[in-house]
């Protein structure tokens, strides 16, 4: 299913997205009544998941299920963030058939920060920089072979990344 979408030229995909973005706003993925299991796997921006407050609700919206902790998911994040505005966080995994990787910060106003879709042939290693409002758990979810795996690490934030 995924390959069908990812084979689409990016340009066309963006044009489709541009046209559809306004129409989708406010509807939310949940309101379609389709099992949200497919939310991350399909080609749409997961608007509803990004709007959820807590991490559990965001994961549920994104994947429709819960993840199990796995030591095959290596999460690298600082013990103490030098500034909550820019927290370098990365993940690598030895799990096979990874299709997506999501990053969440449990105490941010909206827990979900980023979701990366990993087509076949792309390695399941991602590094990025995220904002953290305060000290909390960083959770990474790896979707592999249709299952969800997670790793969690607490990051202390002394200067919050929400300005204020």
């Amino acid at each position, binding site marked *: 299913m995924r390959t069908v979408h990812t084979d689409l030229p990016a340009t066309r995909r963006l044009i489709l997205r541009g046209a559809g973005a306004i129409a989708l706003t406010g509807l939310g993925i949940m309101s379609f009544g389709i099992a949200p299991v497919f939310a991350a796997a399909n080609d749409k921006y997961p608007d509803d998941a990004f709007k959820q407050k807590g991490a559990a609700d965001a994961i549920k919206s994104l994947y429709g299920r819960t993840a199990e902790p796995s030591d095959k998911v290596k999460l690298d994040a*600082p013990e*103490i963030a*030098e*500034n909550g*505005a*820019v927290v370098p966080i990365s993940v690598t995994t030895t799990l096979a058939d990874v299709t997506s990787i999501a990053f969440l910060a449990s105490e941010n106003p909206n827990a979900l920060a980023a979701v990366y879709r990993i087509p076949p042939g792309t390695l399941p290693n991602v590094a990025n920089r995220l904002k953290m409002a305060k000290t909390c758990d960083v959770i990474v979810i790896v979707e592999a072979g249709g299952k969800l795996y997670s790793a969690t690490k607490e990051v202390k934030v002394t*200067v919050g990344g929400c300005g204020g």
Partner: protein
Amino acid sequence: MALAAVALAALTLAAPAADTPDPVADAKAFRNFFVTKFPKVKLEDFVNGPYSMNEGMRRQWEEKEQFPPYEFSLDTGKEMFSRPFKNGKSYADCFPNQGIGVRQNYPYFDTNEGKVITLELALNKCREANGESALSYVRDDMAALTAYMAFTSRGKPFDIKIPDDPRALEAYQNGKRYFYTRRGQLNFSCATCHVQNPGERIRAEILAPALGILNAMPIYRSEWGGMGTISRRFTSCNSQIRGVPLEPQAEEYRDLEYYLSYVSNGLPISGPGSRP
């Protein structure tokens, strides 16, 4: 006990000021103080500020340096620097070696004008001499220009000279006095934080050592979400100790920059830098 040692060291540092100014001895004592206090930090690493003192922060910095946040400012600075003025001249015409690889020689004491000329001041003098308006000393354009000039000078050791002119020595002494004088509601001097307590936290921040503190300028601060010049750093430091900042490029600030740069002679330019 540690405090007593620090106080003693500070006294030793300040001692020569009482009689004859001796910048060479000052610089030596200044460097020795930091090298002794932080025996594990390599001399050239002091220019990396708090990252030379804290392993966890250093890792975050190294990650950021893979694609540093000052990249855009650097490009802007390069573009600004090469764009001619309306009269057809450019910044390159105002500087030795067309302005490339010369950051380590600023500030210098101009014996004609009888005052300290910083790089920021020199850039605005260049603009004004060519019919352009001066840039704000605390905003992005000046930060971008100095970022580019620092970048072309990376690795070159600070080479600040005090010419044989009593006014130059006086400017140096003024800068030194400013550095050690307490001010603001917190009653802090520059030295309170950057000599007595580098590596320690003040609220959430880890203090940078004064040795090499200007070598990384200008800096991208995550706290600012952008770039800042030396002028911006001096004025914001004064605000943070709840003092009243001077005008950017006021004589005291230029003299302070002269003093601080001189005592970091020999340490490499590392700017532009990034900081928390």
